[in-house]
């Protein structure tokens, strides 16, 4: 029977290479061998996605490799989720994400969403053209740690400002950390509108969330 260390390495490699069929048996073997679900997630799976995220940041791998890695990760998380919930240790928390009202672009938002899931966050994706009220509704319903907003064009950047202002008016601003991203955005703009952080790409968004948990 393989050593636990070998199984852990195999699981990491299965996630890094996006081999989804290999993930389920490896996770089950590790559980059978007595490894704690939280340890599988935190010590094995999330570090694997960190490797993937770093490679993606450096253009050593591209979107397809990152997406299949995130998908493989999610297969493992699906197995662990009921046990983690029972232990009260479900991942890093919830993230509500959406493209702001008026913005119909979702490629960047979808990439961020997948990478966050792969990094152990539970993501509630509200889609595109998300009105401030819809974000607020999701905050009440899901109690997320983070709200992430995306805008691809300058026309809709101002809607981020309005959304945050609406959060303040509704008394929910301080309940969440707000992150913003999208091609025309800058750190300066994020500061101006009072967001908690700006992520220049999917990997940066994960790193910022990790530091703010």
């Amino acid at each position, binding site marked *: 029977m393989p050593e636990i260390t070998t199984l852990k390495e195999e699981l990491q490699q299965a996630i890094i290479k*996006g081999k989804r069929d290999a993930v389920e048996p490896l996770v089950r073997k590790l559980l059978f061998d007595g490894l704690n679900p939280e340890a599988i997630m935190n010590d094995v799976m999330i570090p694997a996605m960190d490797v993937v995220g770093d490679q993606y940041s450096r*253009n050593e*791998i*591209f*979107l*397809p*490799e*990152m*997406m*299949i890695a995130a*998908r493989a990760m999610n297969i493992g998380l699906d197995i662990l989720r009921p046990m983690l919930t029972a232990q009260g240790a479900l991942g890093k928390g919830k993230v509500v994400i959406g493209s702001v009202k*008026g913005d*119909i*672009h979702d*490629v*960047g938002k*979808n*990439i961020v969403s*997948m990478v966050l899931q792969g990094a152990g966050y539970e993501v509630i994706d509200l889609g*595109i*053209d998300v009105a401030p009220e819809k974000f607020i509704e999701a905050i009440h319903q899901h109690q997320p740690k983070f709200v992430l907003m995306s805008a691809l*064009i*300058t*026309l809709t950047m101002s809607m981020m400002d309005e959304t945050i202002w609406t959060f303040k008016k509704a008394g929910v601003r301080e309940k969440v950390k707000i992150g913003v991203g999208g*091609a*025309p955005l800058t750190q300066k703009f994020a500061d101006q509108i009072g967001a908690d952080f700006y992520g*220049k*790409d999917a990997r940066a968004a994960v790193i910022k969330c990790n530091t703010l948990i």
Partner: protein
Amino acid sequence: MKGMKPRDRILTALKRGVPDRVPWIENDIEEGLQARIMETTEFTPGQLCDKLGMDGFGYHFPMGGQATAGQAMQAAVGFKESYYYPKKITFDFVPPWIAEMGVIPETGRTFVKRGLLTSNDSLKLFEEYLPDPDHPARYEQVSKWIAQFKGDYAVFARIRLGSASMLESMGIVEFAYNVYDNPGLIKEIHRRFSEWSAKVVEHLNRMDFDYYWVNDDHADTKSTWMSREQYQEFFLPYQKIVAQAIKKPWVFHSDGNLLPILDDLLTLGMNGLHPIQPSAMDIKQIKERYGNRVCILGNIDLDYTLTLGTPDEVDKEVRERIAAAGPGGGYIVTSANSLTDYCKTENVWAMAHAIKKYGKYPLDKGENR
């Protein structure tokens, strides 16, 4: 001395020659902005060019009707009829997305809700969605418009290599998965869109277009959505189907950082590369590395300068871009995507004035300095 005709100015720059001044043309000017510039929707394409001092046109015009959002993302319902018999002036020859579409009621902008080409079985949708590329009606109508409006201007048709059609009709996530799960599906979808475009191009080659503007996004500001090897396997062979059918000059457009695939992309033989998005690529570097192979178009920033900046900032940016990419010719000023209806009108005018002020060859004379 009398200057060059606008068309000759564009074609000279596309051949990497030195015209009398740096030309200006846009991939698109949204109809709302056209109407603001003209202060009416009753105008011809040539009148818009004349007013702005622009060297040519393509895209679409309100022609006295309501100014509407772009036609490039029309929904499939009723697409074939509206494709064959366009109701307003258009020079576009792009296929519809094979996708479930949505619309923002306030703006009329359409968007892809969900790509529908996600399995081998879904390939049957091609027949339902794609118009007949040999149907004569659109070619006849557009030929009449070219004859009516062309004058001395350069006129371009917008087409696709098929890549954007494949990516949007699958969805970026499905594309990514299928690189590993079902590579044959991606190739088959790309091949079908490319063959459709190649047939369209055979008709366009016989028309009085001066060049083509080929719009296929491949990248975001970080990088391309595929590795160089994936580009060579999944894109290049099918793009060649269209590229080899093209018998006129052509400009390739993709937003984002194209550097990971640029050497391979340029083997397609395009004359121009657009829009050199400032947040993704450095125009000076691109001019130095690739200016001997391709005309550079674009780089006037849409994320800030044209949309949020001041006329003075636009003036400065146009001057800097001409100084960076204009020497030796082979540069055409354009926005770093298109002139959207959320560009400030005064900034578009500042752009027009700056091009005249700084773009005269030789560039080291007078106000150019």
